[in-house]
């Protein structure tokens, strides 16, 4: 009885949440096709492709591809680094493990702007500015922090025991990683990669501060919010597409085996 009530409440909350998200997306779609929409009207006065034309005239494609590349590289590099760090941390002593984890997740715990300004100042001091690798580098602490949070607690006792038993069976570290650790962490790794991608994909402040002349979607989008709201809506939809694709494409391996 209690389980049925809980299921019903959970379903209601999910429906309300989905309705909110769908409402926002729907508003964006309407805004993207609104050539004229003056307040306080509830609906646009004129529909058209003005926003799309402005967005495309501003080489939206270039910024899109750049953002895609940066987010993909940041997610992959962050995933490898976070996984490696966690592999070492889970087998370290309690104090060392705690210290390592705090260091890894601290960018996610501190105010984003503070970390971004710190990163930007540091990058400027060491002469890194403007390149794509710089943008990836400054995204990495945020990406890794969230990936670490996702991976935290996934090296449970069972996985560690499986790794240990594999070692006693003569299986070396690389083969262990491929045949034991990665399959054992598959779901969490997929989630970490997806989250890492999305964290990098949405970065604005860090990119703005370090990458003079860099071309990413958030950098293009923010200035247009006030001046070109229709084009900004188009770019927001463009930003949503990969995020949705990542979620859909990565959903397959997270399905439970039958």
């Amino acid at each position, binding site marked *: 009885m209690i389980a049925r009530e809980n299921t019903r409440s959970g379903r209601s909350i999910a429906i309300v949440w989905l309705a909110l998200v769908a409402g926002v997306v729907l508003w964006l779609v309407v805004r993207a096709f609104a050539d004229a929409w003056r307040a306080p009207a509830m609906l646009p006065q004129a529909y058209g492709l003005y926003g799309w034309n402005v967005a495309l005239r501003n080489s939206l494609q270039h910024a899109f591809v750049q953002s895609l590349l940066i987010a993909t590289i940041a997610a992959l590099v962050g995933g490898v680094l976070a996984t490696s760090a966690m592999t070492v941390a889970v087998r370290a*002593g*309690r104090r060392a493990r705690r210290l390592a984890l705090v260091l890894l997740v601290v960018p996610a715990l501190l105010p984003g702007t503070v970390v971004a300004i710190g990163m930007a100042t540091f990058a400027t001091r060491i002469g890194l500015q403007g390149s794509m690798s710089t943008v990836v580098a400054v995204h990495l602490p945020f990406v890794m922090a969230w990936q670490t949070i996702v991976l935290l607690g996934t090296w449970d006792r*069972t996985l560690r*025991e*499986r790794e*240990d*038993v*594999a*070692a*006693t*069976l*003569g*299986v*070396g570290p690389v*083969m262990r990683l491929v*045949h*034991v650790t990665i*399959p*054992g962490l598959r779901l969490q790794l997929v989630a970490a990669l997806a989250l890492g991608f999305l964290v990098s994909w949405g970065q604005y402040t860090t990119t703005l501060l370090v990458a003079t002349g860099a071309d990413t979607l958030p950098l293009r989008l923010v200035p247009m919010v006030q001046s070109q709201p229709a084009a900004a809506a188009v770019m927001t939809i463009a930003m949503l597409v990969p995020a949705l694709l990542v979620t859909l494409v990565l959903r397959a391996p997270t399905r439970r*085996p039958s």
Partner: protein
Amino acid sequence: MTDSGIDITDLNVMVEGATLLNQVRLAVARGRRCAVVGPSGAGKTTLIRAIAGLVESTGTIRIDNRDVTAMAPQHRQLGVVTQRPMLLPHMRVIENVELPLRARRVARTARKRIALDLLDLVGVAPLADRSVHGLSGGEAQRVALARALATEPRALLLDEPLSAVDPEARAQLQQTIIDVQRQSGATLLVVTHDRDEALALGQTIAVMVQGCIVAHATPNELITTPGRADVARLVGRGSIIAADQPLAGRLAPECACPIWLPHHAVYTSEPASSTESVLRLEGQLGRSQLTQSGFTTSFLIGDLSIDVVTVHPICNEAAPGSIWIDTSLVSPIKDGD
């Protein structure tokens, strides 16, 4: 050089300031089976992990006269089976057994043949193509055993291998372990907290208490002359009775035939010499002589007859004067005596 399968000298393990193993010394002859028995927290699993190289340790570990102390786990050539089988869930049964062979770069066809032979050896060949999901505890443990054998181990280390197996399958698996060990010729070290399991599997039994091996002998030696109260409690079939405690009702639990003694019977131990002990039961004095199996005394008290009681003074600092009574050697009260 002795023909030791497993030879451990002064093995210490400390984790975050806690001593888990303390100067452990243990030698198991090549091709023999040794069961390490001890209470929970005694350090049994740590011992297995240290031998396997999974935990940092000091001291010396030799397997087949080869010093493996500094070797990485994957180079020690051991077969380890843990309490839970730890099969890889994304692989089929046969793929799990093939894994150590893949690590040794054995060719595919040979790999498959060996894996099937090993599965056949442990009695689960028909399950080769099954997913590991849905295997029973006993089946999974057999697969884990086959996988451990695929390393052609110099020593097999089993950590509570039967604890997750139902009682019916337990006896069969015990026999399988013994058969497999005999056939492979590997030295076997099995740790357990279960005395009966230790007695069934071990040709020798090592008793582990608080990170130390406190006794290592054949089962018969440990049962009849445990030497220490903790060893007696873990391995013996009898009762430890403090010298000044009433004996009534204390002998029966593990004796096949119940023994009854009057409630007011008082059992005292008055050591006379290293070879002689004096016992007082219900006012009757009995002089015990040290025999091959311990101190032997005969009593006849009223209509009760205790034909033979074998007792050993227990070396127990906590309870000096306590005696060990091997209830298996106490004869039942005879009607009509």
